[in-house]
């Protein structure tokens, strides 16, 4: 698409943003892949519409404030990237644009407060745990809360385990085939520390030595997705230092974190750390991607026939292009039937802090997603991202069929340990 973006005005990312606009031919093939367009049916809430609006802002023809509601409503699921025949690198436009616009857009104070709260708690395990404890106390009052707070509270899990993290080094079982570092991030450590533990066990079982760097922290994904570039870089810088170079891969088991770390190069574009960031980004792999590439020991079959519906996490499927790897891994488990839901490529509505900021759209997507999943009559739902797990679990509960939701590595881990998958009582 023709544009008049003054590229140089936007620094190192100007060229990349303009490149994405140029590649777009406005054909509209992305509309069907866009969750917000599917829900709202409005052009400005479609990828094509948003690209057009961002172009208009960057050209100086539209106020950032005008475009903000629509760009904000983008889940960043990258479903459009998978659907796009023209190869538009939507992320290379959206992420820097959000950072550029965030300084220019005046948001009402409740929005700012909510975002500030999210940013100040989610990436910090201790604060998050305290907040969740508080939220559980208010849960009985949920029906009387404003929509967004209600949405927040509805996502709070029933049980909270003590935040744990795996040991700093875990030796490979048998001959060492590889050495990796694992990101244990923030939210997942509080909500589901058992996923990290499963990841480490499954890796070790397959001859991988695992290090869990002590100094690491939140990957910055949540801040990155809402355009808080400064905050995201502050968090990411810590990881640039924390992760060693002498590993074969940096493993993430949360799709959102993996996709953010793979974007570190873009995040530090034009900054002194760019080269270092690029190197780290190049080593990042999702745990399923890594295990599939390595080749795994076939686990013993499950004790009972089980039907799992696999739900693609957008940040795995669309942002990282990882589709086959988790399916192949699950396919290696005997007695496990893996089925595909309708609208598999559509976001569940979690998308980082999205479900907190846009509860209506997020809830509609969550309901739709769960309908598709339950139509397959599954024993368990399997996915590769903690955010999706929280959202899907909440909507399964609301639908009255709280089928267990597991991470891909948890399925492998249970299979290796000769245990069955949890089932709905």
């Amino acid at each position, binding site marked *: 698409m023709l544009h008049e973006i003054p590229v140089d005005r936007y620094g190192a990312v100007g060229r990349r943003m303009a490149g994405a606009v140029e590649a777009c031919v406005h054909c509209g093939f992305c509309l069907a892949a866009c969750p917000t367009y599917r829900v709202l049916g409005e*052009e400005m809430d479609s990828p094509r519409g948003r690209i057009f609006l961002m172009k208009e802002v960057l050209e100086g023809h539209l106020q950032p404030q005008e475009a903000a509601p629509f760009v904000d409503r983008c889940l960043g699921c990258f479903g459009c990237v998978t659907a796009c025949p023209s190869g538009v690198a939507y992320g290379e436009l959206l992420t820097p644009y959000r950072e550029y616009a965030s300084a220019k857009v005046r948001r009402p104070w409740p929005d700012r407060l909510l975002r500030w709260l999210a940013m100040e708690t989610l990436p910090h395990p201790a604060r998050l745990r305290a907040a969740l404890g508080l939220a559980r106390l208010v849960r009985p009052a949920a029906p009387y809360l404003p929509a967004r707070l209600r949405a927040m509270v509805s996502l709070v899990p029933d049980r909270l385990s003590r935040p744990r993290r795996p040991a700093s080094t875990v030796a490979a079982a048998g001959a060492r085939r590889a050495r990796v570092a694992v990101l244990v991030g923030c939210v997942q450590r509080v909500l589901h520390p058992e996923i990290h533990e499963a990841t480490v066990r499954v890796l070790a079982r397959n001859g991988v030595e695992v290090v869990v760097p002590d100094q690491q922290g939140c990957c910055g994904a949540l801040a990155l997705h809402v355009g808080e570039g400064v905050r995201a870089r502050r968090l990411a810088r810590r990881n640039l230092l924390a992760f060693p170079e002498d590993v074969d891969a940096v493993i993430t088991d949360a799709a959102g974190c993996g996709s953010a770390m793979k974007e570190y190069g873009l995040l530090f574009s034009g900054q002194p750390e760019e080269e270092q960031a690029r190197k780290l980004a190049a080593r990042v792999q999702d745990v399923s991607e890594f295990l599939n590439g390595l080749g795994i020991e076939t686990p013993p079959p499950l004790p009972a026939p089980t039907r799992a519906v696999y739900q693609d996490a957008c940040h795995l499927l669309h942002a990282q292009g990882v589709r086959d790897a988790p399916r192949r891994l699950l396919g290696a488990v005997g007695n496990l039937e893996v089925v595909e839901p309708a609208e598999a490529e559509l976001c569940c509505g979690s998308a980082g802090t999205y479900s907190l900021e846009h509860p209506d759209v997020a809830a509609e997507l969550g309901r739709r997603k769960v309908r598709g999943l339950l139509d397959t009559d599954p024993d368990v739902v399997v996915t590769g991202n903690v955010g999706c797990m929280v959202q899907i679990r909440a909507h399964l509960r609301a639908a009255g069929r709280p089928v267990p939701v597991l991470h891909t590595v948890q399925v492998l881990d249970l299979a290796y340990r000769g245990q069955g998958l949890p089932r709905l009582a």
Partner: protein
Amino acid sequence: MDRARVLQGLRTLYPESRILTRPAELAAYESDALTAFRARPLAVVLPETREEVVATVRWCHRHGIPFVARGSGTSLSGGSLPVPEGIVIALNRLNRILRLDPEERIAVVEPGVVNLDVSRAAAPFGLYYAPDPSSQPVCTIGGNVAFNSGGAHCLKYGMTSNHVLALEVVLADGEVVRFGGESLEGVGPDLVGLFVGSEGLFGIALEVTLRLVPKPEAYRTVLAAYRSLEAAGDAVAQVVASGLLPGAVEIMDRLSIEAAEAAVHAGYPEDAAALLIVELEGEEPEVEAELAELLEVVRASGAYEVRLARDEADRQRIWKGRKGAFSAVGRLSPDYLVQDGVVPRTQLGTALAEIERLSRRYGLRVANVFHAGDGNLHPLILYDGRQPGQLQRAEELAGEILRLCIRLGGSITGEHGVGMEKRQYLAEMFSEPDLEVMRRLRRAMDPGEIANRGKMFPVPQKLEAAAAS
């Protein structure tokens, strides 16, 4: 009527949330898939019921406000370009399949239903909706009806027009009419045939009754690679002459193969100057017998590599590459113009050679990807709008290609419609009395010319010049 009064009037018909008036909202509706044209409407309304559409049209008629009906905005001829002094009626929320009757093989749908969703709904019954424009995952039935959309599989079973049985329409002056029926046959003049392809100039389809067809038992999809585009063109003539009646016969040239391969990794033969895709469909024993003959014909036509789709997934990949080819060309060039000319099938070779010559003369690359079996060419003229004069040169080249099609006895559009883009060329294809009858028909439906104003009919040169300045 000034903008404020228009908005005031619309507020009597719609809640605030379904009238779009903010600059960002309107900007998003400025273009369809032809971005060379842009126009910002006064407002966009989002009706949710047919009654709202009718009320809107009546209101527009009463106040002389032009309206443009819009589906997914995938028109390649600027068919859903807004009118600056008018409103856009976005029909995306009228997207219900009202009735699916597998035994009678019909689907009754609202205009905002997406083409592919009809086939998805019919699939459990072994049926599908045959017309398959490349944009079928997004384009709407309302748009397909307005522009008589085609697709890769028109050769055997025709275009949209051959698959619409009945219509309920609100004419531009607000009268609601129904015509056609649920039978494949009718009596009296073919009014459905007239309405389909009328480019939104008569009014808005509110309800469309579609014919569904049983899914073929078997497909055989053959890919053949050629060293030259002419050789592939000649192969088409040989396939057609052999007496085979394939479901689809498509050609892609080197540029479009390169682009499509980058987009979907369809596994097209590398280094081919042209690729021929022929798909047979029908009963298993018949298709198997036809395949033997097809392979013989294709091999004898000078293909240096012939490949058969291994399975359904492979077939889908082949088609995904073909159907994404237009957009994929966006990878090769910042801008392009898509043309849609038709030539007699025996003139394909001549037309391609002439386009090649024109491309060299204008110094602009032209990618070719087209429905060869129908003689329906889609030259994509690559240009860079930032280079002064390039767009104008590209438009001139496009004009020459259209005139070439007319000269060879063909048409300026096979399936994209005239829209904004080709309206000046309609007068080169039809005489003044031909056009006058069409204008009379249009005025009979729309005396104020408020429905999709500015499309299809040539604008007098003086007005055109004034609009450009």
